[in-house]
């Protein structure tokens, strides 16, 4: 069930109350524990909600909230057995509709999922989206995720994950080193358009993240994976390790969100309209690709070796076009066709 770490805000609590009542009416008799499990709340939160509902109702004709205008529960069952039974209800008995925003968020999430092999047929997705639209109190906002072509490797990896089978593939890492890997696949993760496999690598004897688009020659073996339940599989794709490299860079303020994965800490100083921040990366090979991919937006300040690696990378790129060393002070944006 849903896990929650932050306390709910008042509107979320209201939504819960409005959803909890019809659930209780539909179930007629429910254990506190079962309700807590169903809604992903703590048992104490459920009990608090029951007490609130049981004393809520309508002001009534006299405006004084008379007993007949209030919800009522079987207090003996509740207090002695931790069981909830609504014996009198007012005003609501059905689930509330979704808001336009809520429906739109789920529909766009489904559209993103449709790019993945997990998915049910597009027909069943379409019917699910139609139901969400019908269940919204207004036309869902026009938020959409265009379908992308799924990497065909994903389906293979997926079958290895669900089947608990070892997987073999050729892999070329960011340093350009290639080799055959044998892994125990644990989890498929994606970040935006990029897909990753978290796996225990038998070659490296450690849990690693592999980019799906850097894999080729995949083969699902007959060998079952080892038990990794004692192993901590990180929730995020980017972890910091001691061997990492700290690099000081100047970035345009609006570019900072694009570097969020690499920020070593939250400190930044303004230098000539740019922000000076420290990035933490696994190695300079990742850095040169990152900086060259944000041309003009990120400049490495230190260390000198990191600056040199980036300069060499760009210069080598230019050499492919027969370009000499770049002229100084060239900062004009590129010519691009109109959209």
């Amino acid at each position, binding site marked *: 069930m849903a896990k929650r770490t932050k306390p709910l805000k008042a509107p979320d609590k209201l939504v819960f109350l409005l959803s909890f009542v019809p659930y209780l009416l539909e179930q007629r008799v429910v254990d506190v524990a079962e309700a807590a499990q169903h809604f992903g709340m703590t048992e104490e939160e459920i009990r608090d909600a029951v007490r609130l509902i049981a004393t809520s109702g309508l002001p009534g004709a006299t405006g004084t909230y008379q007993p007949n205008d209030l919800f009522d529960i079987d207090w003996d069952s509740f207090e002695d057995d931790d069981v909830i039974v609504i014996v009198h209800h007012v005003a609501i008995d059905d689930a509330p509709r979704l808001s336009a925003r809520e429906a739109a968020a789920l529909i766009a999430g489904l559209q993103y999922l449709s790019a993945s092999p997990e998915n049910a047929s597009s027909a069943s997705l379409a019917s699910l989206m139609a139901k969400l639209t019908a269940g919204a109190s207004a036309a869902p906002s026009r938020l959409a995720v265009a379908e992308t072509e799924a990497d065909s490797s994903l389906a293979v990896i997926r079958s290895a994950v669900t089947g608990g089978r070892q997987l073999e593939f050729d892999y070329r890492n960011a340093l350009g080193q290639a080799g055959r890997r044998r892994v125990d696949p644990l989890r498929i*993760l994606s970040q935006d358009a990029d897909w990753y496999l978290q796996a225990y690598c038998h070659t490296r004897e450690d849990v690693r993240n592999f980019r799906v688009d850097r894999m080729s020659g995949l083969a699902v073996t007959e060998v079952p994976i080892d038990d990794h339940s004692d192993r901590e599989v990180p929730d995020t794709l980017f972890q910091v390790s001691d061997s990492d490299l700290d690099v000081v860079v100047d970035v345009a303020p609006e570019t900072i969100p694009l570097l969020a994965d690499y920020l070593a800490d939250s400190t930044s100083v303004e230098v000539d309209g740019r922000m000076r921040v420290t990035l933490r990366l696994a190695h300079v090979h990742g850095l040169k690709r990152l900086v060259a991919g944000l041309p003009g937006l990120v400049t490495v300040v230190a260390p000198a070796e990191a600056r040199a690696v980036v300069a060499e990378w760009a210069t080598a790129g230019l050499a492919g076009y027969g370009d000499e060393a770049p002229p100084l002070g060239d900062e004009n944006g590129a010519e691009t066709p109109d959209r």
Partner: protein
Amino acid sequence: MIARVAGGGGKGDSRIPVEDRLFSLVLALLATETGLLKAEILSTVRGYAERFDTSGQNANLERQFERDKDDIRELGIPLETVESPDRPGDNQALRYRIPKGQYDLPDEVRFTPDELALLGLAAEVWREASLSADSQRALTKLRSLGIEPRDPVIGYAPRLRVRDAAFEPLRQALDRRQTVRFRYFKPGEPEARLRTVNPLAVILHESRWHLHAFDLDANGPRTFLLSRIIKAVTPVAGSTFEAPPAGIQDRVIAELNELRLRNSADLAVTAGSDAEVRLGKRAVEGDEDAGVIRLHYTDAAVLADELAAYGPEVRVLSPESLREAVRERLRAVAAAHRDGVEEAS
């Protein structure tokens, strides 16, 4: 019964939790057919009544009610305002209600355990706070149906982030059909230009968020990249517009796809490089022996940024404009990182 703290201690003493007040308000407005006057609500509904001043000093309480109404509507609850037929335009004669028929989830909207599992996964997609909160609220509402979802999909965690600051204000403008203004930088133009638009759809295409809007200055539809919106998106007070036709987002996606198919680039990729593996997967045509691939793209500037990241691993053969764009980028990066140069010039 559990004793409830009543507002006996005089105004301001009672501390009714916000959700309790909102819940009581929703119940009261659902139970009324004809609607309740504001004065009736403030003087009787729990959470207001305790603070109601019979001598008429209720400005704070009225503001509270206005905010609560907005909060309730944001949740998709159809809170209506009904004008008095006898006294049109009189604010004090307005009645408030929530029509039950428009509040209840329609009977045909029911979900199977498999569908709920899929919806749970769809909700987990969002890392961005407001989309995630909206998705979770939707799931809470659907839990009221009492159906247990099929076991959550394990070993599978697709995630989508939204990193454009313009996204949230635009999504709000979309919902409220609110005209907005922002400065937009278009490649090839010397500086960002102020645009005034009616936002019609927000679309993720080729990993970039796009805004499709009616540009009021250009008097025509335009599509913008969110990443090129500079600084704040501000609402134009009092300016709203009609809802766009249903399915407009599908039409825009079709247009973007068409645009993408019209643009193709020929690239030389180094054998055995990261570029060969990753760009190769997107190739529509390729000659492996020659190390040449062809791929489609929507936006030349976006592709040029991406290709620059590959440094010497890729070389643009055509079109010339893309070739030049990548060279410009590499030159800028090289210049900014040359030894002894402290800052990009």
